[in-house]
């Protein structure tokens, strides 16, 4: 008797509880989810700072691309189109760019002038800024005359070749013809700053609060920030002062910050989100079955194993070839990675343009497909050349991300099977890896490389002898001269040929082992149309053309 009484009491209590709770949720907010023209997205992490010059991560860039606009912005295919600049002239020698600005305003209604761009660019180059961290991405602007000296603290601000001729004309002088300069101009680091607004920002510990909070952001892009609840959400609203406002269709974009991807997916299934990233392969099928549209896009990155070419064993080219050919890329991509990624038979990612076609189409594959049989013969050759009786044991450094560990295990298995080589996996934080690879204290490391602008040089330059990131220790004068010739070349076709030649040369020596071109998957509600997932960090998520059906 007592037992059943207790149960009844408990259930009544629970029912009462849930009724009280139920009554308390806000019906207005619930309705808002269903209202039209509101897009709910999760961005995965809190943007550290919404300051275009200082942002480096993809989270702040997703917001910055919506809230700010540079002289150019990337179109649906990732090609620069007019942004704040209505049009531009490029001089015959391709060294002088003159940008003519349109009648565009900041979101508070003040005119955008050429000086706003000059100030922003000089700010990004400032080696010793008074009230903010030196900009990491400022180096992208080093192609401008005098910029390198200024950035390195050797030259002065006045000698940098940026001139605001009048309110609406900006003249930029470059040191070398830089065909991808417009790509750089569309980047976050080259977006304008309203100096008057900036100077009014309060300081915290000597650092300007610019970009730290909603009241510290003044943008000029298609959207304005209406709410910013840190680690919770950012609400964007259409900017009525934007010059192209009539073509912006969404009224509100709700950027939810959900760090845990599986709860983001549950939120998506429950209808709280319209777009969600997919991190595990099995989720693709599950979401497809639920009626979502699952798409994948090339992130512009190449996953590869960097090989230390100065190592006592790995300096042998045949051993490196054995490692490269020992990987079955097709099964790696289809059975292990399973997110739509594409197998890589060269280094430059297929999104990179190269004249009429993509650079990849022009140059072709540089590693023969499925040649695991050959791997063994290369391995035997290397044994003879190295005067060894057994295969040496090698080590592979891997960062602590789940996907990296997964890839490393597959590689270990394939190398054991196809080359007969034992590889030990060393997992550590990326900071530790960085320290070791910069000192060339490693044999192999699993890495991912993406260019900061859409040009083959952003991939190929890391193999030049003098490059800071030449961690493979590739040292080839022929390669260096091809690269510097390409830099001076003004004829686009000839330049691409030189770069093709350079990549072909690179793969004669196999200093790295390419694995796959990284694709990301995401699920989207069928009603969402015109969402662009570009291949550059700044355009990772672009709702410029997005609308709801």
């Amino acid at each position, binding site marked *: 008797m*007592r*037992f059943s009484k*207790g149960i009844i009491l408990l259930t009544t209590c629970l029912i009462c509880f849930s009724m009280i*709770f139920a009554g*308390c*949720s*806000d019906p207005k*907010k*619930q309705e808002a*989810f*269903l209202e039209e023209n509101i897009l709910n997205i999760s961005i995965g992490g809190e943007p*550290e*700072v919404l*300051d275009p010059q200082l942002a*480096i991560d993809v989270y702040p860039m997703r917001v910055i691309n919506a809230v700010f606009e540079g002289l150019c912005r990337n179109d649906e295919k990732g090609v620069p189109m007019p942004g704040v600049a209505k049009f531009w002239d490029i001089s015959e020698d391709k060294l002088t760019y003159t940008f003519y600005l349109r009648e565009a305003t900041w979101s508070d209604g003040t005119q955008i002038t050429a000086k706003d761009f000059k100030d922003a660019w000089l700010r990004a180059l400032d*080696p*010793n800024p008074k009230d*903010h*961290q*030196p*900009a*990491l*991405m400022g*180096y992208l602007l080093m192609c401008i005359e005098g910029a390198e000296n200024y950035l*390195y603290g050797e030259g002065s601000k006045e000698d940098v070749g940026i001139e605001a001729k009048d309110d609406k004309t900006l003249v930029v002088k470059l040191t070398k013809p830089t065909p991808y300069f417009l790509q750089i101009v569309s980047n976050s680091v080259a977006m304008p700053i309203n100096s008057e607004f900036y100077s009014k920002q309060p300081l*915290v*510990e000597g*650092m*300007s*609060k*610019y*970009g*730290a909070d909603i009241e510290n952001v003044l943008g000029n892009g298609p959207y304005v920030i209406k709410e910013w609840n*840190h*680690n*919770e*959400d950012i609400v964007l609203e259409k900017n009525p002062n934007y010059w192209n406002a009539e073509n912006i269709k969404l009224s509100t974009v709700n950027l939810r910050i959900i*760090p*845990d991807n*599986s*709860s*983001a997916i*549950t939120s998506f*299934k*429950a209808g*709280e989100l319209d777009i969600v990233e997919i991190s595990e392969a099995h989720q693709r099928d599950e979401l497809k079955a639920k009626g979502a549209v699952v798409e994948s896009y090339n992130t512009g990155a190449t996953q590869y194993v960097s090989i230390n070419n100065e190592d006592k064993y790995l300096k042998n080219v045949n051993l490196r070839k054995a490692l490269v050919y020992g990987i079955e890329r097709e099964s790696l991509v289809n059975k292990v990675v399973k997110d739509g990624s594409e197998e890589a038979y060269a280094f430059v990612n297929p999104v990179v343009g190269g004249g009429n076609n993509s650079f990849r189409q022009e140059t072709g594959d540089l590693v023969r497909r499925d040649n695991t049989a050959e791997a063994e013969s290369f391995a035997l050759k290397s044994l003879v050349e190295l005067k060894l009786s057994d295969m040496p044991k090698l080590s592979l450094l891997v960062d602590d991300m789940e996907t990296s560990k997964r890839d490393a295990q597959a590689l270990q298995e394939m190398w054991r099977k196809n080359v007969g080589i034992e590889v030990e996996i060393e997992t550590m*934080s*990326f*900071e*530790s*890896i*960085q*320290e070791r690879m910069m000192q060339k204290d490693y044999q192999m490391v699993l890495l*991912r*490389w993406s260019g*900061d602008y859409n040009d083959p040089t*952003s991939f190929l*330059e890391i193999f030049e002898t003098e*490059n*800071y990131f030449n961690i493979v220790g590739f040292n080839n004068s022929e390669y260096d001269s091809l690269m510097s010739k390409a830099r001076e070349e003004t004829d686009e076709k000839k330049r691409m040929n030189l770069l093709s030649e350079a990549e072909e040369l690179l793969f004669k020596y196999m200093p790295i082992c390419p694995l796959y071109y990284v694709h990301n998957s995401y699920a989207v509600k069928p009603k969402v149309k015109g969402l662009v997932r570009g291949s550059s960090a700044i355009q990772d998520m672009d709702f410029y053309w997005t609308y709801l059906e």
Partner: protein
Amino acid sequence: MFRFICRRLVLSLITVWMVVTFTFLLMHHMPGELFVVKKNVPPQVLENITQKYGLDRPKLEQYFIYLGNVVRGDLGISMKYTNKSVNTIISKAFPVSVDLGLRALFIALSMGIILGIIAALNKNKPLDDITLFISVIGVAVPGFVLGTLSQYLLCYKLTGFLSRVTGSSFRLFPVSGWKGFSYTLVPSAVLAFGAMAIIIRMMRSSLLDVLELNYIVNAKVKGLSSREIITKHGIKNALFPIVSVLGPLSVSILLGSFAIEKIFSIPGLGHYLVTSVQEKDYTMVIGLSLFTSLIVILVNTITDILYSIMDPRVQLK
């Protein structure tokens, strides 16, 4: 009492100083580069940044500068959120953790005590077994499993079912976020579960012990009703052991909510406690260690005072 608080104050100052010193030492001996760059950034630029933060100066000098700032109550600027001070980040995130923690503590205490009493009064009967079952789950299943599971079952399945049945857009428990009362229920219940399980077991055994003591027998002999005996004499004395674990329990609820905060996307402090170490955000790590040690000291002091108030036999020395 006054002398007790003074002594605690001095001791806590020493503790805090040691925490700051040790974390400082540990952080500066962590392997790896200062700034992670997966890009082709010139080394000169990284040097400029190192200089900007004074990280190129001798370690000892850095230590004394930092200590000086801490004495003034300034925990410095975060090295990841480069224009936010550690103080503001804590002051924004901690209230959320406290909000969640207090809700959880309330649930854990009230449900734990009630279920503990029920179990004790129904010793070795089915109701006792049910509470045993609940508390075993609470102790054995870690928070992140319980969190994911309840998010799926309650927030997704049940809520989806209810809104389909009623045909409205109304959602009982939202999956993620921190926007209102309905968002707080599932996370705080999950966070409370582990603590509640401990409280149930403690309450049950201590109440059973108390009920066998002489003064309870005396009360029975006097002819008091069993209800009066339990509410007036039993429960009050059975609560002592719970008060003594309340300190550590509430600290673990307040600061150990990382997994729950992550699963339900709650903008609390737990996120920073974990990510700041991964991201080598020096100032943030040291600041948070200092802050958490302060919280632990504070909570323990409050528990001691509470204990002396409840039981006059305990004297604070």
